[in-house]
């Protein structure tokens, strides 16, 4: 496998979705290519940094408006 192959496979590789033979090919390449090794490590870390990350605050006024809307519309029991 060459560098292009690793780039195309990196996502499936870090998700554990590659077939065993492909995993072997990727890992053989990673042993010899520091650029691709760094690419894989950094892509994995990128996914880790974003997972379940709270990048957006929900302002209290937005929550209050939601509560008010729901109270108005569903405060009464459903039919």
């Amino acid at each position, binding site marked *: 496998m060459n*560098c*292009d192959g690793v*780039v*195309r496979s*990196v*996502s*499936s590789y870090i998700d554990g979705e590659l077939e065993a033979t492909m995993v072997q090919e990727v890992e053989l390449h990673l042993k010899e290519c*520091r*650029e*691709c090794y*760094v*690419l894989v*490590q*950094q*892509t994995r*870390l*990128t*996914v*880790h*940094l*974003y*997972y*379940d*990350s*709270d*990048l*957006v*605050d*929900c302002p209290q006024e*937005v*929550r209050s*408006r*939601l*509560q*008010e*809307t*729901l*109270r108005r*519309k*569903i*405060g*009464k*029991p*459903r039919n």
Partner: protein
Amino acid sequence: MYCATLTIRSIQPGLLASLGRAPFLSTTNPHRLPSTVAREDEHLLVAAAKSGDTSAFEELVNRYDRKIFRLTMNITRNREDAEDAMQDAFMKAYSHLDRFQEESRFYTWLVRIAANEALMRLRKRRPNQVSLDEPLETGDDFIPQQIEDWGPNPEQRYAQTEMRDILRSVIEELPPDFRVVFVLRDVEGLSTEETAETVGISEAAVKSRLLRARLKLRQKLDRQFRQDRKN
């Protein structure tokens, strides 16, 4: 408070009090399971809400509204649209509760409803989206040209708020089609199949967009981290 003013009926005595003490699910791989949403009591609340207990539904709303707003903002990047999408998502979830078969977690079901609401608004604002699913060209600079490790833990180099600002500014630069798939798969933790069904594209397209999104984000983060090191 909304809690006190809702009509409460048919609530089981002590249900909410006991729910407050329910432990979080344990997992050997907490990275892949949203820690704040995987509570054992969720099915009890859903069952109570299905039977018409509005206070149980209210508890679900209070538990997830911040996360659902985060999702709708991440997709639409427009606060008004995000708020509307969130409100409509909770309304739809409530009115369709009887259709929820509990084959997935309630939160996952809710995420899919909210993502649909957000996507409808995004598409309304951007009706002529060009397809981004052409084969990946690797002739560009996806492969690191300057090898520089981020170190064992770049999170430790930044304050939490600084890292948050970096992650937010970087993801905002992604084309919306990439961003939507990345948010559903890698922020919210939906499966490839769930993401495909929610967005209305094939699983192959999800994988393709996810690959591109991850590569672009890595590239942008790398530039940012390196620039910060120089300063």
